[in-house]
């Protein structure tokens, strides 16, 4: 006998787990299939930043909704806070020529959403972060932002989904999905499961999954490198980003410092292994010490990268299949996915069950890559 569910989700990253939770609380019988274990790749090993700058314009309504959800994450997940700390996000101008672009970014955000930003002059910048290098001259501070613990966040969504009846199948790679009438048959190497709804939350592996519904899109796998330093005395209080260069730094409560920014290693899709690129990683750490000189005295405990998928236009792919009924997507979140996880799961769940979604997903539909001439 085949096991049937109301919805089958492929992939137990932040998006698979968030969607599972939001569907399970709506009384759907949900199964999540994961090829390794939850949060194995980008969802579990990203830098954990929770901030809305920089975002693509189309993303800003989702970004605004998601930030509100982060503020209430502890209530949403029945008392589990995911390590979320609202310490604020600080975007820094390192030179005069950074100021104008920095303000342009802020204005762009202000036009499209209501998240608060405070412009800081040099004096207030150093009042907020006294250990900054002297060449930093101004900043934009978003007090509503912060960071969370990625692996714990995925766990929080998954645990609540399980409390509402969702089933998780680890080490269960889906090998195919095909539609028979109104029902999808989804196969692992050993078994076949069925459900009227299948959702592709397979991240960098989502291109192949989308193909099972006849949806064609090219997803580029990337492995963003992160570095963690051994615990240091308190050096910074906010989540730090730069205007001109790629850089992200934050210090957790245990004193460890995580440095990222989007520098790429080399992913290997078959094994999930990634190789670091030290010429880029070295540059990444140099940039960090140029913002906080004291970090030069730190020790690198480990560096790593997790695999995630880029869509052709760097915008997430969320919404219905362009070809098949009952097949949905939420993948290729293009390095923006962790922050958006809480809201994307909710809005997609609302859409799937026929509620009015809090935010329109139309800009994210996969169909945008398949209309004539735009693929």
């Amino acid at each position, binding site marked *: 006998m085949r096991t049937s569910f109301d919805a089958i989700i492929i992939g137990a990253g932040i998006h698979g787990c968030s969607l599972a939770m939001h569907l399970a609380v709506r009384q759907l019988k949900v199964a999540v299939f994961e090829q*390794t*274990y*939850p*949060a*194995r790749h980008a969802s*579990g*090993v990203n830098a954990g930043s929770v901030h809305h700058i*920089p*975002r*693509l*314009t*189309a993303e*800003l309504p989702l970004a605004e909704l998601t930030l509100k959800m982060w503020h209430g994450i502890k209530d949403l997940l029945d008392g589990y806070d995911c390590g979320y700390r609202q310490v604020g996000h600080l975007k820094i101008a390192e030179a005069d020529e950074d100021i104008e*672009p920095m303000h*342009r*970014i802020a204005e*762009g*955000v202000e036009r*499209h959403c209501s998240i608060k930003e405070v412009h800081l002059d040099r004096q207030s910048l150093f009042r907020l972060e006294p250990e900054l290098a002297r060449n930093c001259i101004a900043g934009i501070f978003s007090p509503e932002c912060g960071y969370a613990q990625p*692996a*714990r966040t995925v*766990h929080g969504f998954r*645990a609540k989904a399980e409390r509402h009846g969702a089933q998780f199948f*680890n*080490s269960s790679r889906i090998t195919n999905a095909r539609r028979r009438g109104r029902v999808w048959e989804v196969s692992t190497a050993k078994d076949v499961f069925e459900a009227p709804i299948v959702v592709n939350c397979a991240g960098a592996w989502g291109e192949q999954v989308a193909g099972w519904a006849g949806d064609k899109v090219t997803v580029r796998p990337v492995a963003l490198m992160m*570095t963690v*330093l*051994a615990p240091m005395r308190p050096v910074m209080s906010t989540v730090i980003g730069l205007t*001109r*260069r*790629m850089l992200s730094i934050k210090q957790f409560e245990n004193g460890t410092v995580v440095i990222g*920014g*989007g*520098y*790429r290693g080399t992913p290997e899709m078959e*094994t999930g*292994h990634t*190789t*670091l690129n*030290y*010429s*880029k*990683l*070295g*540059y*990444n*750490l*140099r940039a*960090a*010490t140029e913002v906080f000189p004291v*970090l*030069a*005295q*730190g*020790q*690198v*405990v*480990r*560096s*790593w990268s997790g695999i995630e998928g880029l869509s052709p236009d760097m915008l997430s792919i969320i919404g219905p299949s362009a070809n098949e009924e009952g097949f949905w997507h939420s993948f290729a979140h293009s390095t923006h996915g962790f922050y958006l996880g809480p809201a994307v799961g909710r809005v997609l769940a609302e859409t799937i069950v026929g509620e009015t979604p809090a935010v329109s997903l139309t800009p994210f539909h996969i169909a945008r890559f398949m209309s004539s001439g735009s693929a």
Partner: protein
Amino acid sequence: MSNTIEDNEVDLLIVGAGPAGMASALQARELGIQTLVVDEKGQPGGQIYAGHHGSPDFDRSFLGKDYAKGRSLIDAFMASDCRRMFKSLVWDISQDGHACMSDGSQTSFVLARHVILASGALERAFPFEGWTLPGVMTAGGAQILLKTAGIVPSHPVVLAGSGPLLLLLATQFLACGVPVSAVLDTTPASNWRRATPFLAGFLSSRLAAKGAAMLLRLRASGIPVLGRVTQIRAIGNGKIETVEYRHEGQIGRLQAETLIVHQGIEPETRLARVANANHAWDARTRSWLPACDEFGRTSIPHISVAGDGRAILGADAAPATGRIAAIDAAFALGRIDRDTRQRLSDPLFKELRRLGKPRKFIDALFSPFPGLYDNLNDSTLVCRCEEIPAARIREEARRSSADINSVKSRLRCGMGPCQGRFCETTVRELLLRTAVPSCQEVGQLRIRPPIKPVGVEEIISLGVKEIPPESRIPLEPRA
């Protein structure tokens, strides 16, 4: 062929200058292969022959014949024209043969056409209540102190655990006048039963005579050697003061400023793992070993393993595995043909078979037994770096994934500077006992570079100074 290294490229990189690494290097030079040997320590010899070239000077003869034997290998190695780098840590090896090595202030890249990992062994972690108290030390640690510096406890010490090293250390202590209060042997009766079928192979070896001599010497000295001891605890305020144990149904207590513990050794495989070589579960020794062919070649064609880092075979077998790996490296580099490889290796394989005979008995007798991890108190710390108690690992196993990496990402065990060297085995054994499943499902900790912490500035020195084009992405919100 000369052995100069230009442009940071080398034919053969050997990591570790213990018996396997040294013998590997000698063999490689005999075959004319340009060779670089890197070791984290300041002297050759690995842990087993540590101190031969050390100071201060003292009479090391009481350490025994097996230790003295290392001298000639070390002398030959130091006289060879291979290139040696001491006090240098190889902290990452990529699949394309790039190795990152740090001398503590500077990191450099070496591109090796072939790599032999001879990284030796680690003490098997053996947590019990109070094992983090100052004054509790591993037998390997105590022996290194003894061999390198002639430093010994001057107060009564207690030795507890199981394995040949514990007995060896006790007799060495005896020989240099260290007061030993007791040897608490935790080897359970079940291990004796498992080992008995292999007794014949052991008795015919030199190791049997050595073991018997050690036991006799201990008995003659009057030092109490208690067998089948369980429930070791270290008690004290800020440092160990009392050792408690259970023997023949009774709780015993001994005053001690130093407790020396040992439960055998395991291969140190972190570099093989960081290079993503395949590993296979070895049920006999309950450990993951690098998957390799008879020559020690791993799943990555230009990376081989030798010595105890390949599988625990001991110091006598290590040179043979090292030489075999070097012969195979010469084949891999196209310097010798397949037949020559076989001809040169055959006598070494024969020697390994001979040395392997007593091994089955020793492995069975001193294999990690269930009691080591069955009776762990919930409050006992499993991960020393992040201070994670057994209870949290059990709880995680019950309610979540049993994959050891998933547990690591939630609990942080294995995220400290030791990268799981002293908790991975315990975490795995607890996961296997609490929730699940197979060792395959639990898996191995994924090792992240650097395998030991490295200064931020060293990694910066590997980086480009110019801003890479990709870091100039437009950051304005786009429509």
